[in-house]
């Protein structure tokens, strides 16, 4: 199968000498649900943001859907970005705008300015927006202002907005890090279900190793800007996890049931 996204020797240096990414090379195939794990500061956010060039890489190539992202002009970049949905840790909704308009923002790149200003989105888009909101259980909040929602609800709107782009690739940078465990569960479940239904390729940054094991078809471990693990969840052993989080064990977020928490927790301090 041809990869949807190929990353070759990706390097990102912030300022003079903060090497956030240290030469990462990976292939991502259609339909994969990839979870990226790693301690704080490992470079997970930098990695995911380089893909749609919210962060400009210093070296290397990012080939998405046949296009060299790192070489694109501003105009072409916008077009490619419209094929990549993104979900953020802090949801990044426009708070004073209502829920359905926030979802329709996913279609802005396909609508001329005057139409979007007059709310003249295509009927199919509006219909799909409503259907998506129904699917995530927000049918009663359609006309509420986004800043009146709870965190979990906001993130579900964020998912709908990204899906309405009808993207080929979905990026999520710690989508559940700001949520309570219950909402986190719902959001993660819905993100997984929807991307499965739409046969989307997903790259998700997570801190929670148990979620990674539950949903991922492939896990990538990043440490100090380099890939230290790349494989199926079943191959991610406890020793491997300990190695990825070596020295930063306190950041490991596991549920008690795995039995890892105690063993790892004792290493803390």
């Amino acid at each position, binding site marked *: 199968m041809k990869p949807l996204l190929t990353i070759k020797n990706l390097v990102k240096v912030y300022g003079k000498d903060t090497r956030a990414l240290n030469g990462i090379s990976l292939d991502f195939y259609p339909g994969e649900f990839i979870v990226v794990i790693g301690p704080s500061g490992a470079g997970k956010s930098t990695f995911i943001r380089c893909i749609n060039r*919210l962060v400009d890489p210093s070296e290397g190539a990012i080939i998405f859907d046949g296009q060299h992202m790192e070489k694109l002009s501003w105009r072409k970049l*916008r077009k*490619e*970005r419209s094929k990549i949905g993104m979900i953020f840790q802090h949801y*990044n909704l*426009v708070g*004073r705008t209502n829920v359905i308009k926030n979802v329709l*923002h996913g279609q802005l790149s396909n609508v001329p300015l005057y139409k979007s200003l007059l709310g003249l989105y295509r009927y199919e888009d509006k219909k799909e927006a409503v259907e998506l909101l129904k699917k995530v259980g927000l049918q009663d909040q359609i006309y509420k202002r986004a800043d009146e929602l709870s965190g979990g609800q906001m993130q579900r709107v*964020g998912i709908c*907005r990204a899906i309405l782009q009808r993207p080929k690739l979905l990026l999520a940078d710690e989508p559940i890090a700001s949520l309570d465990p219950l909402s986190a569960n719902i959001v993660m479940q819905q993100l997984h279900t929807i991307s499965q239904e739409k046969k989307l390729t997903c790259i998700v940054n997570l801190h929670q190793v148990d979620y990674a094991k539950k949903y991922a078809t492939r896990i990538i471990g990043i440490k100090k800007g380099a890939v230290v693990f790349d494989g199926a969840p079943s191959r991610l052993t406890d020793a491997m996890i300990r190695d990825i989080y070596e020295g930063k064990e306190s950041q490991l977020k596991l549920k008690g049931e795995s039995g890892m928490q105690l063993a790892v927790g004792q290493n803390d301090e």
Partner: protein
Amino acid sequence: MNNKTIHKIPLDQRDSKRTFTVVAAIFAMLIFSVVYLKISFIDMFMGLPSFVMFFFEKFFPPNAENLKQYIPSVVDTLGYAVISTYISTIIAFIFGILISENTNKFKTLRVITRGFVSILRNIPFIIWGALLVYIFGIGGIVGVLALILVTIGFLSKSYAESIDEISGDKLEALRANGSSYFQILFHGVIPQFVPAWINWTLFAFEINVRASAVLGLVGAGGIGVLIDTNINLFKYEEAFSIIAVIVMIILLTELVTNSIRKRFV
């Protein structure tokens, strides 16, 4: 632990000498100004009774006979404030976008706009008025122009600060999904900016009502002209009732703007 050593626990780390120096410096400035300008508090104090006498003798009772004749001037004054606020808010919005780092990535353009706006703002409007009267001659257009210039200066800076405060996060989502610059502006920046926009604009309107009442004193039209002429003609009673009208207008304006604020922000 030795109990004696914890006897004194200072609540501040700063030394008191610095505070003392600052207070002394502020006081010295006052002394200097009074001495340099030869202001005599005694004269001031002694003059107070004759001022009060003068006020009650000449200004009282207010002469409200011609109240109806002020109406055109009152309308003029309010009209200047409305027009100048209206025009300024549009131009200032564009400048605000050009000044804020959130909406303008070109540093040179930001710096130039900021500099220009700062000149507008830092020349007091009464001086703009006097300058423009010199250029255009006496009349209403001068008043409006003077108000517009200063209000653009004031609003551009305030708008830009409010646009800066809109977190980049929200705009990042639109940037990431391929929206154009103007879509980010209209769908991301403007909705979040609305409350600040209403607030600043109403505030500018209040200032402009006050200012346009004063503009007449330099011959730039409005109700201020009436005060000026009446005082020059020694018609103090009439001047007094005009002043009363101005106070009423200003109080009414604040009443209205405050209720709008409560409703919309």
